């Protein structure tokens, strides 16, 4: 038991680092080209800016960001570098904009000697957050085109005599891929789902549940009726990971009632604490407690039938699919573009899920051919402990 606890703790510690990688790192830019002038409007979420600059005082953050953006956002043309011009009064070269309480906004004007062969370069934040995404809109010749700046795609050449094509579906597919690769919670969910699988056909259920969740997320997001509360959403995804961990543990322990009562009880306790510390999280925690109680009882009753846990996988995929629409509003993208981004993102994530499931099947078949028998109870125990620990950590840390 002692060694098991150590393994679980090591997993927890390993996962803690990647827990923060889950937080989406995004910014928004609009590049307007008019003659020899290029106007850049750059928007950055306040939380992102404070994390980047390590300063809480807004004026200091703004001042540091201005210098940072001047260094990392540039325009070049056939005539060489296009300098950022002084905007008069005492503004300097970067004008801070008022764009709401949760965003910092900046405007920079670049003047080019020769407006041909324009190249936009945006390397802001990629050095500090490699998974950072900048949703860009390029306005030129009366047209607006949506593009992405990513760590791999930091420059954009604007054609002189043709329209700039918008970012293709492949770019958004990559977005989904990258998101899944960097998301520890998604990996944990897949691991939990695989541990709950008893028969080969249940892998199909996992894939179906993931597909259903992503499709539902897209459908809900397309209606535009609701917007997710992002930090709470990510916290709840941690709760689901922990719940799946509890479901796995419940299969192995002698007294499953302890888990069926303990985990919902813990969530109820958290909801009570939230009344004083995080009132906005009460609904999610209470709902999570009731959901957990029902889910664990059902899991115990139906432990050999995969009826209930794929539903939880679908809920996770739904929430994961909703995370992207939550960060899109400041980009002010047209509905069609948003749909394309979500489609690409969800397809990318789903494809990687399918590949991973395929890989697991391949490995399983290989192991079976070699007559290798896994010590399943041990694996289940360790993974259940790690999943519960990590999930709880995400649940609490993202509640703030």
């Amino acid at each position, binding site marked *: 038991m002692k060694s098991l606890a150590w393994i679980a703790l090591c997993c927890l510690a390993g996962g803690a680092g990647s827990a923060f990688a889950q937080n989406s790192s995004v910014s928004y830019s609009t590049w307007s080209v008019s003659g020899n002038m290029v106007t850049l409007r750059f928007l950055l979420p306040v939380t992102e800016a404070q994390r980047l600059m390590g300063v809480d005082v807004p004026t200091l953050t703004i001042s540091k960001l201005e210098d940072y953006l001047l260094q990392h956002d540039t325009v070049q043309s056939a005539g060489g570098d296009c300098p950022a011009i002084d905007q008069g*009064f005492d*503004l300097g070269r970067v*004008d*801070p*904009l*008022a*764009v709401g309480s949760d965003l910092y*906004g900046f405007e920079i004007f670049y003047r080019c000697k020769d407006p041909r062969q324009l190249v936009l370069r945006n390397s802001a934040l990629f050095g500090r957050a490699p998974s950072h995404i900048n949703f860009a809109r390029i306005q030129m010749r009366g047209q607006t085109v949506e593009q992405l700046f990513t760590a791999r795609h930091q420059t954009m050449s604007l054609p002189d005599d043709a329209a700039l094509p918008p970012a293709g579906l492949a770019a958004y597919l990559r977005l989904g891929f990258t998101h899944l690769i960097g998301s520890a919670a998604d990996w944990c969910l897949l691991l939990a789902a695989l541990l709950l699988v008893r028969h080969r056909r249940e892998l199909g259920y996992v894939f179906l549940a993931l597909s259903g969740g992503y499709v539902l997320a897209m459908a809900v997001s397309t209606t*535009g*009726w*609701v*917007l*997710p*509360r992002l930090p*709470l*959403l990510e916290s*709840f995804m941690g709760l689901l990971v922990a719940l799946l961990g509890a479901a796995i543990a419940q299969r192995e322990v002698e007294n499953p009632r302890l888990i069926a009562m303990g985990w919902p009880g813990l969530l109820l306790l958290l909801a009570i604490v939230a009344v004083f510390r995080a009132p*906005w*999280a*009460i*609904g*999610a*925690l*209470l*709902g*999570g*407690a*009731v*959901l*957990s*109680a*029902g*889910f664990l*009882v*059902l899991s115990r*009753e*139906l432990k050999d039938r995969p009826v*209930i846990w794929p*539903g939880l996988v679908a*809920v996770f995929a739904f*929430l994961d699919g*909703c995370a992207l629409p939550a960060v899109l509003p400041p980009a002010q993208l047209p509905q069609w573009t948003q749909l394309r981004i979500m489609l690409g993102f969800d397809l990318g994530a789903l494809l990687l899920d399918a590949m991973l499931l395929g890989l697991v099947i391949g490995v399983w078949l290989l192991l079976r051919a070699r007559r290798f028998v896994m010590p399943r109870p041990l694996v289940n125990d360790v993974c259940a402990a790690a999943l519960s620990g990590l999930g709880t950590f995400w649940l609490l840390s993202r509640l703030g």
Partner: protein
Amino acid sequence: MSFLYRPQRALVLPALAVAVGLVVAGIGLFRPAPRPLMAVPPGYVALVNQKGILFNDYRAQVEVETAKPFTESTPAERSKVLREMINEELLVQRAMVLDLPETTNEVRTNMAVGVNAQVAAPVLAYEPTDAELRAFYDKTRDKYTTPGSMTMHDLILRVGGYQNADQTTTQALADAAEAVYQLRAGASLDYVEGHFGLSSTGRVADGGELDFAVKLHLGAKLYQVAATMRDGEVSDPIVDLDGVHILVMERHDFPKIADFTTVRDRVYLDYRTAASNRATEENLKVLRSQASILIAPGQSE
């Protein structure tokens, strides 16, 4: 009731809990998205970036610009006004994005004036009765005085100056006391000036001056004495830096408090100004009570 005894309840109740849990969590995890307005709502003439331009404002602007009733304005005139109003709205929105209220003094001043005007508007809309004005006048009566004037002479016996370099203050005081005695006894100014070596300082004009001018010319010390003197009075000798002065008052018209009927217009304006100031102060008091204000160490307001 039979449900309670059925074995399926072991599944139905947890399933119900799952559903309820999902719904409750969903309510907490999502919030209603702001719905963009796709059509101009009633009462508005246009939407600019989801911000409405009121039809009433549009109507008033058309009437102001065309100098005729809205119904008589032509479609072309209305279109022109609407275009101007949309342009103005765009500029105002741009100003907000550029944070001009925080960065430009003129905008800040105008905004502060605007807020004060808005706060004062309900107070100023009220027309005070004569009784209220009279009560206000009675309370602030001192403000409604007509200025006084003086026709006087300021005589001096210089001390230690180029004219009487050897004369001491004591000697001058003795001479001045005698001169005052003579003047009060009815001696003429010319006689006293010639006999005691007094001369006019020339600070006050012979034809008379308003009180404030006398104060300015004589200085605070001499004016304090002059302000109490009545017609024909001669002051006691007054020692000042340049010598010993004697003030001779020919005519003193004291300031008078104007009666209500003659200053009613002024009282009306002052009443409104006072009401407006009170409203501004009240508003600031409320704003301060709701604000969190931190002042740097060593600073005070």
